[in-house]
């Protein structure tokens, strides 16, 4: 069975690319352009993994994560961040993300990680 990933990012091009990238890896995707969208979509579908950009227009990525956790305590997510500072690290770790990746992403690194996490 193919795995399903929810991608949340406020840039359309990124969403499109990520979706195609994951498709090549034989992973199905759904995309959300904002935090609210993401929550709506998550409610209606089930996902194996969530890819979340921290910087979203409107609702903050961290808040989205909190809400998703409430909806599904077992949710597994990886955040994409532009600037990892030490407090952000502790903040999101305490929220239970499996990993984070920094912009600009290293595609081979990303590929490795996502394949690794999606298997579990």
């Amino acid at each position, binding site marked *: 069975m193919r795995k399903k990933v929810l991608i949340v990012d406020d*840039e359309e*091009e*990124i969403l499109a*690319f*990520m979706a*195609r*990238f994951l498709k*090549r890896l034989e992973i199905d995707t759904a995309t959300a352009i904002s935090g609210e969208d993401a929550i709506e979509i998550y409610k209606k579908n089930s996902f194996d993994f969530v890819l979340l950009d921290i*910087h979203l227009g409107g609702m903050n990525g961290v808040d989205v994560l909190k809400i998703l956790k409430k909806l599904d305590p077992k949710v597994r997510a990886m955040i994409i961040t*532009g*600037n990892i500072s030490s407090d952000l690290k502790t903040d999101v770790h305490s929220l239970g993300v499996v990993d984070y990746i920094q*912009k*600009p*992403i*290293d*595609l081979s690194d990303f590929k490795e990680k996502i394949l690794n996490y999606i298997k579990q």
Partner: protein
Amino acid sequence: MYNLQQILLYTSSIAAVALAIFIFVKNKKNPISLSFAALCAASFIWLFCYAQMITARPENASFWLTAGTVGMIFVPAFSVFFILSFIKDTIKKTTYWLIFAPGAFFALSLILSGFFVSGIKTAEWGIYPQNGRLHVFFIIYSAAVILFGLKRILGYIKTDDISSIKKHKAIYLMLTYMLFLVLFVFDNLFFYNIFNFEPITHLIILFCLSTSALIISNYNIANLKVLSIKLVIFSFMLLLVLFITSHVAKFSDNIFLSNLFTFLLTIACFLLYKRVILKAEDLLLAKNKHYQNLLLHAASGMAQEHNLERLLKLIAIIVLKTIKVNFVAIFLENKEQKNFEIKILRSFSNSANELLFSYDYEHPFINFIQHKENPFLFDEIPQYIANSVVLPFKVALVIPSFYEGVRGFMVIGEKNNKDIFTRDDINIFKMLARQTSLAMGNCLFFDEYKQAQEKIFTAEKLASIGGLAEGVAHQIRNRLHQFSVLAGDLKYEILDCAKQQDKTISENKNLSETFAYITKIAESLETNVKKTNEVVSSILNYAKIESKQIMFEHFKFKDITDLSFELLSAKHKITDMGSLKIINDFKDDVTIFAIQAHMMEIVYNLIDNAYEAICEKYNILAGDSLKAYAPQIGISLSKKDKITTLHISDNGIGIKEENISKIFVPFFTTKSSAKSGTGIGMYIVKRIVTENLKGRIWIESTYMHGTDIFIELPNI
């Protein structure tokens, strides 16, 4: 009724003794004191015995007469002896004989026969000697001997290398003894029956003794001019009073009235004396007062100047032009070099205005200045210190400037008109020095204030840049992210297409080449994004370091090194080499007290460089040497005397000698562009070490052998 003569003679004799004792006590070691004492002794005998003689009964008079005249006979000899001692003339044995032998002869002729003094005569005012046949020869001998002394002193004055002060002293002495010559000869004429009035010319010897005492006791010579005028006027007034009162007393029977008259006359003369003195001073010192006023005026304007260099130049020029001296030099303390170096030099003739000169803290001249808080004449310094001061001009006056210790001093040459510096001058300079100290303190405060302001401004700028950098970095990273994603997209599209159209492409050579090339471009785009990101990261880190709150804390050094190696292996994925040996030469539990972020930055950068150096060497070596290569990185930390030394070494490729000095230049890198790195790492490390941690860093390296980096940090 008193005898004027007697009183004068008694007071003079006592004064002579007092002077001798005074000089002797002050300058015990000086041989001049002895010759002066001898002169005073002879004078005392002369004056005291004559005092006794004047009012003695005729039968007792001859004893006092003989004794006193013997004293008088030796006075010229001893005065010449004194003069010669003063000018430090080497007195030959024959000179001694020529001066003293005739004196002895005359003395003997006086004692043993009547050829010198034929008897006594009784004048109106008392008993006095009557001349004998030899007496006239005595007069000639006295004149000759004193003239000889004067000739010698004239020769001394004409020599070139005596200081102004010595010259002036010698001139005063010469004038004094010229007067002495005239009046002494005149005095001896009283032996004959020429005059009817009382001989008061004995006082000349007292005048000579007083002036001589002043000259040799280093009393500030400048006042001598004024002082001698004061003395002359005073003596004149005194004599006038005494003369008038004694004659008035003679003619009036009323004691009360005559005493009252004396009293009133004394007061009148006293007031008149004061007036005359002031007038005389004004006339004499008019020139001095003029420039002193100018200096005072200028001094008050000094506080307006805030630039130290300009202030010093101003002072130098003012002093040079108003007092018209030969040169002015200003020395300032240089705390870093621990010396006083010449800052300003202005000379009247405009020669050698650029002169590099300095005196260390330990130089004897500097030591001397530290003890003297007030301006002093160069002549007042002990000889050995004066000899150690080597300046191209002759120094007359030194003025130290105090502002919490000696901060500097001004050195002034002689006045162009060869005048000497008077006591008033020195007082004015004292005031000038005080003003200068305040003005200098002002300037230094302004300097510090400006520096502090600049620092604040820089810090503010950096803080805003730090904030700005974060924002910019974030934006750039977002764009780079796009780049990266799009480049990745491109690459995969091409790969997909290539896979799908495999057959078509492999049949067409051009097409396959084009596809290979496009794929390469896409990959290159990815790599370049990564590199750009690294540049952004370095700058961002640097900006962060500057603007963050600085917190010192204790932490284990091992934590830093462990973390650095972790980052290193993450960055380079250390798998592509043989075993890298890491030597930790420090105790596991050793702690340091510093800013963790700084130390992290330093250690990580250095270890990263070491690793990359090893990689480069690895790439160059081949065959046996490659097999034999045992790469290692060593880290050592040692603490000694409040200085901690960090030493990181590697046996990598090393640095070429011509590049060693460039290592710390920002964006200089010898690593090939294919490798990571931006060249800003070492620059950041150096700045952290020198500016934030106040330490020092240096490199020793041999190309193809390895590199050692040393960092010395105080107080961690």
